[in-house]
């Protein structure tokens, strides 16, 4: 090893360099077979796994919903017992909110971030693999419990004392609590990885006012997660202690508090709602302008609005607790905050509308999903404002109106953008375009089915139908509305099925896409479809928000961005580290090679939690021991990563 391994001037090349591409392929490619599958740290591989796993949970949650809708289609149905219904609605909520909505966005962001930023990988590739493996383990942990009839059964927000041992003696809540803590670890390490990647891995010249809005969305969500997740993990841990070790955090007769649970849960819960919509809004902010053939209107205000939403999002949790008997002064404050938080969302809405009006639309399926999302977002937004108004919320809360609201938020602001984003980025993931004709059918079935199914829920709510009822009596005025809801939700399910068929069909025989099928402006479209393991042969240099539109927009600095020539970085797996604000290169980072440490760590952590669940303390101890050994091995200073002093430096 020579002194150049301590520091060097990186060489420069064009991207038309086959020898270089071959060398990178050898350096970066994951091994084939099971070994590669278990050890890969490639963000694209991890991103795709996240997406597939999350869609798997979406389907599971959808099947649960379909069964429940059958039960509710007519008054007095009894295909399900009350216990079965309770476990289904709780598992449905847990699945959609925790196992689908968050991870699907992590999947897209994992795949897209390094490409959008002109980087070779995420800042911490092994941590990235770890976050996926733990997510998978947590999902299996929770669903294995459900398969044995031990799924959560007190609703996804799991209020105490109902969830405490005296009122729920089975192991259901123990599995839910431990599974959620496990999942929280995955979300936390993923969030840390996104933040560090944002701060350190942007291509030279990509100052923070040049990153795509999706980056802002995921960054903001990640920042929120690292502050919010501890609240819910702690709440679940304290509950597990109450249930298993006899502590008294939530136990009222011995000085605990039932409302403490609600505070801790919603201090997490509300920021989480924004965490599962802001990245999706970012997808639209980046995708929609491509089909309007112009840059997004108001980039700066939209980015600021994203951050502002999240900051305010930490100050509204009490609006989930308006009926708990809090002092009026507190209600007033949180009511006003909950209504005012709409302002930053209005910024985004009008930015998108302005982008459509001042652009020239290209009618693609992705465009249709993105634009319909604006309307669905508005419906979910205004119904949210209504629940923010305390006296109105005292009527609305815990009725189907809230069920309608949260489905417009989760499906309207998460599923629709995600499906649109799949149409948009599928060519990048696979090299093939999705079928547009089937896409139209897919869109209209989903759009009509969704509104037919979920809009009437507002009305059944206004007519007083409480949420979380396994059945309802005849003569309450809800019969027709429920039947329509069931029919609509089944139409919606058909729409989702068409989407999956389209994905499968296009993956097999879709039209070849080329590097940039939509003539889009950002860096992910500068590389091949699908991208090579190293993403870019040379590191791009960025001089504007739209490196690939610069020839037509003339808004760049100096001589503009370079995507076909740039830094080489070929001594090992290497990436460029840049300063946090201006993205000035300040280090050549050594990136880790594929490793089994993440998958072993994930299994060991899961064994630890399984040990706690079964009171198999030896298993928990063994898990903890392996965790410790794995982490020490992981952190062992490596010469290859430039972490150690050998050989001695000069002087």
């Amino acid at each position, binding site marked *: 090893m020579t002194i150049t391994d*301590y520091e060097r001037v990186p060489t420069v090349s064009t991207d038309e360099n086959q020898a270089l591409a071959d060398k990178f392929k050898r350096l970066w490619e994951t091994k084939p077979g099971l070994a590669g599958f278990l050890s890969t740290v490639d963000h694209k591989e991890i991103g795709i796994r996240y997406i597939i796993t999350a869609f798997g949970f979406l389907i599971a949650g959808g099947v649960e919903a379909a069964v429940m809708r059958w039960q509710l289609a007519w008054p007095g149905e009894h295909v399900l017992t009350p216990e079965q219904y309770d476990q289904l609605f709780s598992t449905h909520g847990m699945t959609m909110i925790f196992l689908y909505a968050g991870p699907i966005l992590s999947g897209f962001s994992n795949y897209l971030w390094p490409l959008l930023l002109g980087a070779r990988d995420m800042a911490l590739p092994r941590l990235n693999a770890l976050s996926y493996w733990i997510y998978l383990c947590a999902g299996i942990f929770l669903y294995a419990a459900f398969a044995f009839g031990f799924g959560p059964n007190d609703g996804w927000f799991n209020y105490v004392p109902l969830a405490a041992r005296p009122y729920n003696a089975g192991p259901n809540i123990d599995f839910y609590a431990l599974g959620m803590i496990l999942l929280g670890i995955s979300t936390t390490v993923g969030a840390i990885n996104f933040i560090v990647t944002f701060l350190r891995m942007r291509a030279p010249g990509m100052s923070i006012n040049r990153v795509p809005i999706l980056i802002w969305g995921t960054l903001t969500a990640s920042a929120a997660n690292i502050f919010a997740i501890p609240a819910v993990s702690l709440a679940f841990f304290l509950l597990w202690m109450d249930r298993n*070790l006899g502590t008294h*955090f939530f136990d009222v007769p011995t000085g605990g508090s039932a409302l403490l649970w609600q505070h801790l849960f919603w201090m997490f819960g509300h920021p989480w709602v924004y965490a599962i919509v802001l990245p999706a809004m970012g997808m639209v902010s980046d995708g929609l302008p491509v089909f309007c053939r112009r840059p997004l209107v108001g980039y700066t205000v939209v980015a600021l609005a994203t951050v502002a939403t999240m900051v305010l999002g930490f100050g509204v949790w009490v609006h989930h607790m308006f009926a708990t008997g809090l002092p009026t002064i507190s209600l007033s404050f949180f009511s006003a905050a909950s209504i005012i938080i709409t302002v930053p969302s209005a910024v985004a809405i009008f930015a998108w509308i302005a982008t459509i009006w001042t652009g020239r639309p290209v009618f693609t399926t992705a465009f249709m999903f993105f634009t319909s999302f604006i309307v669905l977002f508005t419906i979910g937004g205004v119904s949210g404002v209504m629940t923010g108004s305390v006296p109105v919320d005292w009527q609305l809360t815990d009725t189907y109106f809230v069920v309608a609201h949260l489905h417009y938020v989760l499906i309207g602001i998460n599923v629709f953008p995600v499906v649109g984003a799949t149409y948009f980025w599928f060519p990048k993931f696979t090299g093939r375009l999705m079928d547009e004709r089937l896409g139209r059918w897919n869109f209209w079935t989903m759009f009509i089915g969704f509104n037919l199914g979920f809009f009437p829920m507002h009305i059944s709510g206004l007519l007083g139908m409480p949420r979380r009822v396994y059945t309802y009596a005849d003569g309450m005025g809800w019969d027709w509305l429920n039947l329509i809801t069931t029919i609509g939700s089944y139409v919606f399910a058909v729409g989702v099925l068409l989407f999956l068929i389209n994905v499968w069909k296009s993956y097999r025989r879709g039209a070849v896409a080329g590097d940039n099928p939509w003539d889009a402006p950002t860096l992910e479209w500068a590389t091949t479809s699908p991208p090579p393991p190293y993403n870019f042969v040379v590191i791009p240099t960025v001089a504007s928000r739209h490196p690939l539109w610069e020839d037509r927009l003339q808004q760049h600095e100096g001589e503009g961005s370079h995507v076909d020539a740039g830094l080489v970085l070929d001594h090992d797996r290497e990436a460029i580290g840049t300063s946090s604000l201006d993205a000035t290169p300040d280090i050549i980072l050594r990136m880790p090679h594929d490793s089994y440490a993440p998958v072993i760590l994930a299994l060991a952590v899961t064994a630890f939690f399984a040990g706690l669940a079964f009171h198999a303390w030896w298993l928990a101890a063994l898990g903890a021991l392996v965790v410790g050994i794995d982490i020490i091995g992981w952190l062992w200073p490596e010469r290859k990563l430039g972490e150690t002093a050998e050989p001695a430096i000069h002087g």
Partner: protein
Amino acid sequence: MADRLPIETALPVGAIDTRASGWWAMIFVVFTEAALFAYLLFSYYYIAVQPHAPHTFPEGGLPDLKLAVPNTIVLLLSSGAVAWAQFNIEKNDKRHLVWGLGIAAVLGMIFLVVQYFEWAAKPFALASSSYSSLYFVVTGFHMAHVVVGVILLWALFAWSAMGYFNRVRYAHIHIGALYWHFVDAVWIAVFFTFYVTPYLGLRT
């Protein structure tokens, strides 16, 4: 084109100082851990202001400071030892780096032993009351962090003794030290909450 790429001077390669990705990751680990302790202490204060029978919060009356105050000093000294180790490696003094880490790890272990006696001296058990649950769980969370910290300090001690670090390559030292300083700082908040606020009037 070369003028667009401001890289005519050499760039360091690998993981050094505050440009190492691990350093940044540890900053956000500390943020999320700090949030965890904030929620733990929020739970304490939230339950503290609920109605309780007289002399049950804190259970057993005002907490005894006999062990807690000296132990707090031990932990602060340990932070000082780590800071001294960091100072030494920046001067390329590898021998004193090893000493600093070793002293810090030993002090951390002393803290754990004293905490054991502190726990044993408490007249209540984990499941006695909401106060006892809070006391053992919050200090227990902190102790778990100290255990992790001590293990990391011994790992750093061993790696330093093996000569892995020098004036340029010491990112691990800074990353581990950041965690240890956090564990010590958060103890101040825990100590203030459990040992000082009852004397300031937060009791029944």
